[in-house]
Structure formats: C-alpha cells, structure tokens
C-alpha cells in the first residue's frame, strides 16, 4: 500500500530532511520524490510505501500534520487510493 505526502510552503533549509526523518521513524519507505521551488515557494510530492509501518497509519498522518504546523508548512498525508479513484478509470 502506498500513500502520498504533499508538502507546500515557504522554502527553507532541511524540509526534505525533516519529512524523511519522520518517515524513517515510522518505518515508512520513500518510493519517489518530486520537488520544485518556484520563486520562494516550495512544493513537494512524496510517494511512500506504508506496508511495514510500525504504528497505525492515522498516527503517522497526525505526526506529519504536527510537523507541518511546527515548520509552517502545509503537509497532507493521504492514502494513494483516493487519487487513483479520482483520476484513473
């Protein structure tokens, strides 16, 4: 099973490091990262594997939202299937 983590906000040093550190803490494996900085605006989409996650997925979602609040970023963690449902027939 996969999930999508989207991160947007003002660019700063160490955003990817912070997000990756939380992934590692929860045994969440990063599969793909796509990241751009447009002017000062940072935007990243991370595709992660959650098969070996060591806590309930909802706890990971909460932890990521918390990280977003702390770092002044918008972080949304959503199960991949909602995107597949909407954009694939």
């Amino acid at each position, binding site marked *: 099973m996969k999930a*999508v983590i*989207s991160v947007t906000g003002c660019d700063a040093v160490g955003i990817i490091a912070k997000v990756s550190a939380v992934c590692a803490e929860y045994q969440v494996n990063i599969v793909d990262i*796509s990241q751009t900085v447009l002017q000062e605006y940072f935007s990243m*989409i991370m*595709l992660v594997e959650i098969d070996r996650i060591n806590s309930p*997925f*909802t706890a990971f*979602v*909460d932890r990521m939202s918390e990280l977003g609040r702390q770092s002044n970023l918008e972080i*949304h*963690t*959503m*199960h*991949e*299937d*909602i*995107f*597949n*449902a*909407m*954009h694939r027939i």
Partner: protein
Amino acid sequence: MLKNHDIFETINMIREECLDIRTITMGISLFDCQSDDEKRLCTKIYDKIMYHARDLVQTGAGIEKEYGIPIINKRVSVTPVSLMCGGISRDGALNIAHTLDRAAAELGINFIGGYSALVQKGFSNGSRTLISAIPEALAATKRLCSSVNVASTKAGINMDAVALMGRVICETAELTRNESAIGCAKLVVFANVPEDNPFMAGAFHGMGEPETVINVGVSGPGVVASAIRRAGDSCNLTDIAETIKRTAFKITRVGQLVAKLASERLNVPFGIVDLSLAPTPAVGDSVAYILESIGLEKCGCPGTTAALAMLNDAVKKGGVMASSHVGGLSGAFIPVSEDAGMIAAAGCGALSLEKLEAMTAVCSVGLDMIAIPEDTPAEVISGIIADEIAIGVVNTKTTAVRLIPAGKAGDMVCFGGLLGEAPVIPVSRYSPAKMINRGGRIPAPLQSLKN
C-alpha cells in the same frame, strides 16, 4: 503513476473548494423488532441499532483521516416506524421517538431517519398513530427526522394526507415556536419517495432493502462552480455541460471509494451512492453560485430553470459512470436556507416561491427548507404541498416539501449549523381551502399521451 497536477487538483478540491462526503448513512431493518409490548419493542429497537451501528462513527473518522477526505455526517436510517405502530398507542409511538433519539445520541450521530409513514393510497392504523405523534415527537427530540410519502405516480395523490400534513406542519411549528420552528426542518412530505436515500430529513430504510446497508451521499457544489469559472467566459453551454460531467465523475469516484471502504470495514453490504450536489451555508459551497457562474445575474432570474436542468442532468451523467450502484435522490439540491447563494437570492427578491416550484420540476427534491410566514393557514400549506407533489407524480420523479412557518415575510430565520438561515418568503393571500377540504384522492396520471 500519478501526476503531480492530479494530486494537487484533488488536494485543492478538498482544501479550497469544500469537496466532502456529506454522509455515510447506515440503513437498519427493524422488522424483527416487532412486538405488541411497547416497552419490549423499544428495547429491541434500541439494542438492534446500537449493535449494528456501534462502530459507524469511529469507522467514518478512520476513513476520513487515512484518505484525507472530510466525512461530514454519519447517520442511521431505519424501517418506517409506522410499520411498527400498528398495535401500539400514540404514547408508544412517542416512546419509539425517544428511543431512536437516545440511540442517535449514544452513537454520536447527528440525525436518525425513519420516523416515517407511506400513505400514498390511504392510512393504515400504524400510519395514523405515527402521523398523530409527529409534532410532539419532533418537538421533544433533537436528532429524529420524519417523512411522510403522500403520493406516487402509480397510486396518485392522497389528498386526505396532503390536508393532514398541512395541519401537522402547523402544529409542529407551533410546538417548536421558541426554536424558529426547527421541528419543521426535520419533517419532509414526499411524492415517489426513494427507499435508499442517505440524506436527511427524508432518509428511511425501505421495505425491499437488506437487513443492513451502507449508502453514501456525496457533495461538492464548490468544486463544480470552480471548474466552471476556470473553464472561462468564452466556452459555450456544451462545454459547460462537459465540464460539469467530468467534475461530477471525479466527485462521485471519491464517494464510491468511501462507500466501498465503509462497507468492507463495517461488514455491511454497500447499497448506493447518491449523486447529489448538496450545498451548505458555507461560502463557496452553493448550488446557486454554480448557476450564477454559468451566467445568471442572480439565481431565480429568467434562465434559471434551464441552467438547473442542464446542471442536474450533467451531474447524473458524470456520476453514473463513476459508481457501481446509484440511487437515492441523485441530483442537485436547492434547499433555500442551506445555500448561501439561495439565501442571498431569496433575500433580494430574485427568487420567489413560484420560481422555486418551477425549478423543482427539473431537479432533485423539491421545495426544501423554505421559511414561510408563521400565520400561513394550514390549507395554504396543503395547497403548496399539493402543487409540488403533483409535479413529482406527473413527471415520475421524487419531489418533496419541507416548509418552515416561522416569523413574518421579510424576517430572517436562523436554524443553526448545516440547516442555515432563511429569509421568510411571502405566500399567496388566496386560499385553496375548499379544494383541500374536499379530501379524497387525485387518481394516478396517465403514462402515455405525454404532452
């Protein structure tokens, strides 16, 4: 592989354009709760609802968090309670109302539907008992919703029931006068009522439904309005219809996903997805604004019925392909008090009761959440009901009436929360009393020679 553009589109729909799942409604059959002992009947009803729906709220919350899609309401609908009332007294029917309300409170759901009767051809003893208890039941409970089906295309219109419901609405308003007649916001009069509708206040668990079932109602007027605005001013109505269809498809796919997940996790069969555009009073979540983004100066102006007809049809066409089973009310809702654009249009006089009636001929539901003067006579309310019901019966569609007699014409009446607020709309001063008091039944309409 997912494209970044798609991912951001989905996130934007949810965060900025108010996309949500409006309701997961669990239908529960009460047939096996039958008993001629009123106390035992209530105990069995309570136990059955609590057993089947015990995980409903928690499961909904889990899906909401994992998939990042807000699920606004979790609700329960039950077998029409009139079927349980055949052998019991009016007090017994009131006890059932309290029992349902208590179960809803303990489950943590905001509404429970099914305090209902189907009387399109006539009244059974149970229906009479239940309907006589409706005003007091709605006044004494917080979460109970009630509906009465007074007509169908096959049976015609039960005008005795129409006359009775006019009086029931007046009485309910009177008993809840201190709370803006809120009881009437939980009471719907139907023609051709669907048996699998997940939306309140008209939800009940129909006779042909399984023991338990999960029905899901989607929403997303804000998403459709934004898509039309993005399409720009230069595209024609063919393009607009296409845009609505595509958007409705995406919205409904999310509904289908949530319905499937809820059904699996609760181990309850999936029933239907209701493809509805259900507005809320929140800014940007309005069906009226969709119509205005198509190009109407104000919802209710000439052209509104045509725009709504196109919207309603395109929503269905897009949604049908996105879901394996579609049902319920499926269409655009136009509840006045629950839609910021409708409230504004009614407030400035662009939207009249007569225009709303015309609009209901081409869209889902009917005269919904409309505040009328509190001194409106019961016969006039019955006349309004009869007109609206006739539209449904002749056009083989569901129509409904949810009128709230509160305040004076021009006042603003506030119901709070999702029920919103509404300007009181004036009604005709002329009375249909003689016709209404005749009673009887209007025969079922001819289904051929359609002109």
